[in-house]
């Protein structure tokens, strides 16, 4: 895995919650975990992230948005475009300004569109893919659509 943020490969300061673990700071938890441990996560006052699949309606986790520091949107296959609308909705409608990360089946050729709908970090399969993704972020110097609000 390699993480791209701000057009660079960076060390990931987040980690995913493993089974039977109690979340420490910078832990990304599942939607299910969030739903079962809302109070603990909020009162804990430690930063946490939430991992959701691209097909989940925002309404089912909108309550987490004011507490979570990161939303990781999972692409089950790269051709499933629901995650794009999810990110765009988080930025535009819910005004979510913190990190939105693309995870799962994320390909370098998608980096440009992903960044344009509001993703600010991309988890790629390898360092090679991550380097290519950074190149691909510069594919276009112009475009017709306006930017997502956060950018």
């Amino acid at each position: 895995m390699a993480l791209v943020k701000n057009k660079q490969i960076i060390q990931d300061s987040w980690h995913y919650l493993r089974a039977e673990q109690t979340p420490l700071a910078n832990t990304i938890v599942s939607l299910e975990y969030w739903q079962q441990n809302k109070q603990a996560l909020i009162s804990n006052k430690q930063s946490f992230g939430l991992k959701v699949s691209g097909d989940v309606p925002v309404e089912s986790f909108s309550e987490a948005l004011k507490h979570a520091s990161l939303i990781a949107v999972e692409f089950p296959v790269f051709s499933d475009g629901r995650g794009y609308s999810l990110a765009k909705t988080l930025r535009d409608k819910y005004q979510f300004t913190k990190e939105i990360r693309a995870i799962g089946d994320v390909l370098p050729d998608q980096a440009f569109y992903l960044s344009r709908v509001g993703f600010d970090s991309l988890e790629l399969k390898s360092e090679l893919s991550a380097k290519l993704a950074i190149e691909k972020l510069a594919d276009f110097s112009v475009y017709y659509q306006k930017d997502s609000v956060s950018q």
Partner: protein
Amino acid sequence: MYLYNELDQTLINERVEQYRDQTKRFLNGELTDEQFRPLRLMNGLYIQTHAPMLRINIPYGLLSSKQLRMLAQVSRQYDKDYVHFTTRQNVQFNWPALEEVPDILADLASVQMHSIQSSGSCIRNITSDPLAGVCADEVEDPRPYCEIIRQWSTLHPEFSYLPRKFKIAISGSPQDRAVTQVHDIGLHMKKDVEGNIGFEVLVGGGLGRTPVIGQTIADFIAEADILSYLDAILRTYNRYGRRDNKYKARIKILVRETGLDTFKAQVDAEWKDSKGGELSLDKAEIQRVKAFFVAPNYNVSDDTKLNSDLENSGAFRQWFNQNTREHKQTGYRVVSLSLKSPHRPPGDVTYDQLQLIANLADQYNLGQARSTHDQNLAFTDVRTEDLFSLWQQLNEHQLATANIGTITDMICCPGLDFCSLANASSIDIAQGITETFTDSAIETGSLKLKMSGCMNGCGHHSIGEIGILGVDKKGEQWYQLTLGGSDTHETKLGERLGRAIAKKDVISTVNDIVNTYKLHRNDEEKFATTFKRIGIQPFKDKVYGTR
């Protein structure tokens, strides 16, 4: 016609280079077939039976003579000296080499053409009325709005991995000549009581395996709000459209399964937040684009020369009656260039013909031509005094077959000869129909025959007055016929005639259908009217009673 500015040109140039790199990485083995597939499809490249097929967009059917010459040149340099016009006003090359496609695209980019989103699960070419701007019954010229929507949808970051392809058509006239009712979104331009421009929005139409007529989701969306409304529909579709089964992934299935009212409520909920926001169209932007489509300075002239030409030549008269139409300006006519001659498959045009058409466009039609959804071309601004000499030159090059709107002016997909999806051939059936009906086509009258080589329905068979669908039965080619469909503003799906017909009997069956119509028609009655009056039974009796 819209002309690119620096931004438009930079964008397509950068797209060519992006695709060049993607092709290179695919050929190097750095991209798998599966990863390259959506990338090449979003650039119009299919892998077909014999070779790749490259589809180039003709935005809402407008072409300049310069673009026509470039299409000719590409067909000579990279292909086999011909191109094929499609039912969505686009053009296809049937024999390009995969590794040469980036060079083809670079050549096309030099004349402001591209293949962006001509295929793939994204928003396709915006299509429209080929008579836009010149027909007398127009509420408003749809072309500026087509261009605005084209730009908004091009390389759209959010809507490029939709559940399935997405087609939008716009009509500016009550007479729908853009088959808007069988598009994912159909837009009808209208004016409210105060004269403000807007759109009636239809959603969920489509052909293919499950043909559906679109339904009205909004009676009037003001021009300022059209992009935010489209955005709301697309987002709703992108989020809720089915992805488990590609045959159920079009928006028509979502609308049907959700119900129009619920779907509309979902769209409205989405729109409530975005209406009036960044996608609002301001008057200045609309005016900027409209400036590209102002009517030319028409010359005031009368039809004196035309009238004497008509008197002097019967063949010219026949062509004039069949292949030209009224123009809003007296002294001008709209001319159809028939791509349905007996000499080649429907929609095909050769290198030489393209060159000629480009020259004639410069000479007689303000340097422009248009493609139509029924796979013909049109010159929309021809002075009536020029018609005779235009006809002579078209005639010499097999572009003046006097058959527009008749049975031999059929829509036909490439079928088994080219397409890897097809179950049956269509080009040879088309040839048979042409041979059988050429002499009687005009006398038979207006009759729309549409044929597809498989149930994906690229040949629009479901809305043909006579529809022919190729099916596979245990490795043999059979044909399912439907009757009474319509592609007009009252779009209708045809009724099934009965059991499928063997390939060898298709032509004689069509002949039986035509003869049954002729037997029952009153005077000049059109096929559609006769069919409505007598129903399908007499046709069934004739076709199956004798077999």
